[in-house]
């Protein structure tokens, strides 16, 4: 369908963008890559009075190594994120997840910030932001503020951004030595949203898990930080894949710990899966993700 009519504003600076958004209030929407917003407009599921296009603002499309963290500007495209040597080298979980988003053409336009600001629990990057304890930097006419990932995803498609606030970018902490990473996405076809996804960061010492951080995609109205399984994983020594563990017949303590992965979640029902099947997937995929992350 053809979208309903709206005004189009392309501010020349961030200041101007903030002022335009401040004046327009809830009537206006930010336009970044448009890869979520334009399909919504075409299906007439959204009727903003105005779109404020940030697509050409200088300065929001960059990746910076800042010592203890990597700053990813909101307007950096998925394609740029997954190719960035800084991202791949220091925060590889972000690159692994970005590579699974949609398809090449969508990744050329869709942005890192747009994916997070859209706050879709089925999106692949929100679970990563939660697992890595990212910090969101937002700006409005009133000034700048920081929002920890744990407070950013308020409800389904509802980020903690206030009307008139622009997401400038995200600080992604570097985790340092000894960590392994993996994003495990279960989907029906090559290009499809996750039925369930698991973002895992795992630190092992001498074959045992010292610390694990797990984020879940599509397991509730918001992305989920799976604290129960993180606690269960601490101190676990996984069976060797071809040794005396799972394959050998006796129980793998890692598999037992991953049984906690769906604890406290409220997964959705849709055409592809019921909640009980999603809980099953969360447990199986967490096991795979933790294994692939080096445990």
């Amino acid at each position, binding site marked *: 369908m053809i979208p309903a009519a709206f005004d189009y504003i392309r501010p020349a600076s961030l200041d101007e963008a903030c002022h335009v958004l401040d004046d327009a209030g809830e009537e206006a929407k930010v336009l970044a890559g448009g890869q979520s917003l334009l*399909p919504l*407009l075409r299906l007439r599921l959204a009727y903003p009075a105005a779109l404020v296009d940030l697509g050409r603002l200088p300065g929001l499309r960059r990746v910076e190594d800042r010592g203890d963290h990597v700053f990813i500007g909101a307007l950096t495209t998925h394609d740029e994120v997954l190719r960035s040597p800084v991202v791949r080298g220091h925060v590889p979980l972000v690159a692994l997840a970005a590579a699974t988003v949609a*398809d090449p*053409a*969508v990744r*050329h336009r869709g942005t890192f910030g747009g994916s997070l600001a859209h706050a879709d629990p089925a999106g692949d990057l929100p679970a990563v932001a939660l697992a890595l304890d990212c910090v969101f930097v937002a700006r409005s006419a009133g000034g700048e503020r920081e929002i920890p990932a744990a407070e950013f995803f308020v409800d389904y498609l509802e980020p903690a951004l206030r009307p008139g606030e622009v997401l400038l970018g995200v600080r992604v902490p570097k985790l340092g030595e000894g960590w392994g990473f993996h994003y495990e996405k279960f989907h029906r076809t*090559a290009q499809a949203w996750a039925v369930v996804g698991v973002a895992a960061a795992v630190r092992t010492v001498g074959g045992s898990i010292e610390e694990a951080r797990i984020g879940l995609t599509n397991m509730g109205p918001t992305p989920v930080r799976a604290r129960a399984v993180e606690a269960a994983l601490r101190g676990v020594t996984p069976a060797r894949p071809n040794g005396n563990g799972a394959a050998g017949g006796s129980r793998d303590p890692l598999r037992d710990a991953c049984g906690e992965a769906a604890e406290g979640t409220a997964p959705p029902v849709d055409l592809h899966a019921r909640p009980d099947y999603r809980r099953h997937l969360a447990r199986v995929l967490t096991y795979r993700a933790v294994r692939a992350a080096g445990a």
Partner: protein
Amino acid sequence: MPRITVTVDGIRYEEEVEPRLLLVHLLRDRLGKTGTPVGCDTGNCGACTVMLDGRSAKSCSVLAVQADECDVVTIEGLGRDGELHPMQEAFRTEHALQCGYCTPGMVMAAIDLLRDDPDPSEEAIRQGLEGNLCRCTGYCNIVRAVRRGAQEMSGEEVRTS
């Protein structure tokens, strides 16, 4: 109404456009570039894929105003002097189309893929075309065509405009 300037298949156009006009409708309805079809309402099928400033994009998911001052290449801009582009020729040789609806998008996505990987494996081709759906030929001949197109083009610079 916003006024935009956009280059399409090598020709510069100046147009007044409603903000809600999609790039694909600008191409088809205003500029007569009906080689680029619309297949879905959701950004999933890839039939409408064009090159936007040298990289593949789904023209149904871009506003015409967002393409202001950009360079667009459609399937109609690939041929030279009455000759098909090697990738188009390869699709014909390998019978990689049946109804042909997905073909313009497939060819554009295939050319985009070769920019990063001039000699793609079957697996890389299947991954690279993940955003393009074919509902009738099936993908075997399409993958074969992209292999052939890549070989024909080897050594040649990947031409996207």
